[in-house]
């Protein structure tokens, strides 16, 4: 006898923490503003030094509690930085040109973590990808460090490797130096924090025409591009990025020393989270260009309107970057502990807008 019986059940889905409190900040700010040439040029410099205490983070807890993670006030973090701003009226009069630019440097460092100071490993989708460790930026990338490609059997025999590794597979560093390559050899392999970020805005106007161009960029941040585990897997199951043309083919034809051999069967741990997937995420982007034309007042008055403006505007028109995936301004996983991981993210849309503003 089979009856369609459904019964309900309930279970605790997350672990509470009655001792939680807000994060606390202590911040020092020093600023300087200067106006030159009757304020045609103004400069500003700001320095800040912020210590965040009782960081509120969802961190891994021993799973024997029945739960994988819980919110805790854990640790202390420092953010120090300096920000520069310039704005100038280059031309005033019939033709106007204004420029404003900014440049910011921020340095992030974890100062303390929990009672033991043990690092926090975090990740999603492909296991552990990031580490938050005292003395390093929050959410640094964590994995094996690629030294190169095993060129031949002799190279393989003289270096620690996985038992499925063959010539042409990825050579990782034995960080612990114990002659065995295992999960303990994972180390910090980069982070998403840029050296600096910057932006430039220019606006022009002449008669009824106005033009605005804004550029934005970052320099020195890195991205853990795990999408390449698929786009560069060399298994013959789908299209790969063109860089696989430089793969290892034989000891005599070893390619660029970074891309391993083609292999339909996944062996050699070539796709482990490693520095092989860490890329420079620097970019400069044309954030917005807008061009408008305001019809002369005499024309507008004749048809009893107060204002008519025709315009075209483009968002994300172009990005200059060496990054191999779509968008260098990426994070697939929410939260501060897993920043800068790209695992098949969507491209940013380019948007072009045409319009007419009419004022009655």
């Amino acid at each position, binding site marked *: 006898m089979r009856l369609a019986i459904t019964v309900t059940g309930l279970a605790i889905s997350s672990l509470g923490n009655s001792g939680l409190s807000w994060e606390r900040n202590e911040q020092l700010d020093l600023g300087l503003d200067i106006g030159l040439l009757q304020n045609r040029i103004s400069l500003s410099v700001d320095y800040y030094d912020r210590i965040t205490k009782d960081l509120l983070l969802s961190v891994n807890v021993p799973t024997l*509690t029945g739960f994988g993670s819980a919110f805790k006030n854990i640790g202390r973090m420092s953010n120090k930085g300096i920000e520069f701003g310039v704005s100038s009226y280059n031309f005033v009069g019939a033709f106007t040109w204004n420029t404003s630019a900014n440049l910011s440097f921020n340095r992030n460092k974890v100062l303390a973590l929990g009672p033991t100071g043990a690092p926090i490993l975090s990740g999603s989708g492909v296991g552990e990808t990031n580490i938050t460790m005292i003395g390093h930026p929050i959410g640094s990338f964590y994995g094996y460090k690629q030294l190169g490609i095993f060129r031949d059997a002799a190279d393989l025999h003289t270096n620690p490797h996985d038992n499925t590794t063959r010539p042409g597979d990825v050579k990782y560093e034995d960080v612990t130096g114990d002659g065995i390559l295992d999960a303990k050899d994972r180390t910090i392999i980069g982070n998403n924090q840029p050296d600096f970020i910057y932006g430039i805005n220019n606006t022009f106007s002449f008669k009824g025409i106005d033009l605005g161009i804004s550029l934005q960029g970052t320099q020195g941040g890195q991205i853990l591009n795990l999408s390449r585990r698929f786009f560069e897997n060399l298994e013959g199951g789908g299209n790969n990025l063109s860089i696989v043309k430089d793969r290892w083919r034989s000891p005599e034809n070893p390619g660029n020393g970074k891309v391993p051999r083609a292999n339909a069967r996944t062996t050699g741990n070539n796709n482990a989270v490693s520095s092989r997937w860490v890329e420079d995420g620097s970019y400069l982007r044309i954030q917005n260009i807008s061009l408008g034309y305001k019809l002369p007042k005499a024309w507008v008055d004749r048809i009893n309107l107060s204002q008519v403006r025709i315009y075209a505007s483009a968002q994300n028109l172009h990005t200059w970057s060496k990054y191999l995936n779509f968008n260098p301004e990426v994070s697939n996983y929410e939260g501060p502990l897993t920043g800068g991981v790209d695992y098949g993210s969507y491209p940013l849309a380019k948007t072009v807008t045409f319009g007419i503003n009419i004022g009655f």
Partner: protein
Amino acid sequence: MKNNYRNICAAAVIALALASCGKGFVDLKPVSSTTTGNFYQTEEDFRNAVNGAYNSLRAGGNYGGDSYVFGEIRSDNSTPVASGSVTDQDEFDRFYIRTTNPYINNRWSNSYTAIARCNAILDRIDAITMNAATKDRYKAEAKFLRALYYFNLVRTFGDVPLVLKEITNPDEGYQYGRNPIGEVYAQIEKDLAEAAAVLPPSYTAAADRGRATQGAAKAILGRVLLTEKKYGPAAEQLKAVIDSKKYDLVPVYADFFKVNNKNNVEAIFDVQYKSGGVGQGNGWPNAFAPQNSGNAVIMFGGGGNNILLTTW
């Protein structure tokens, strides 16, 4: 003027409302969601909680999708399909399991999630006023399940932390270390013996199908004792199951596994699933359907994903 009067009235009402705000105003428990603060109060709550502990049987690391990885992939009965860039099953097949393997992690964490559910029931039920016989049965069911989960853990990992009470603060987790295998088995035997003394030989209501019975507790206790090579006591438990006359062998061996023959006379303890695309189904048939067979053999993306049965 009239408008002004209205504003004054409104202000007065707001002022009164503010004045009456005590500490209780901001210290309310959410009524729209269930929390450990408002749950575990009634017999009904505990029925739900016990069902929740059974639900863990379906978790991947327990009897859900992963268990063939532990039981079958390591043998020559089956081999995993080389899939994507993932070596997780291959590591089992060819015995180079990495410490980062997710199946290892799932068995551990799914087992302890299940055990936490059992512990919460056992810690909280004594304080509740409810039917005494039902209370005893719920406790016996929780002990039965806790023992089963520990049996899987100890066979997979050897020494494991023995958590026997509910953990409510994440920091408590750091106070546990691994207990020797002997202590874990002693607890499993104790839980199963106590469960067998209380659990009914069978259930009458259809909604209770799949709950642990006395026969199930004795049969698993027998299996535990066999695993410990305590053959005499094992035989004693298993003989009691046979002598209960509740079970029999199905005439055709293959019939035991047929989907339309669930909870048959040979099944002493079954994990319950429900077909019909309601999210309560069992993923095993999908895993074992021929590779890339789509919906030809089984609904909802048959095979292609996990396993090829080898025929030699």
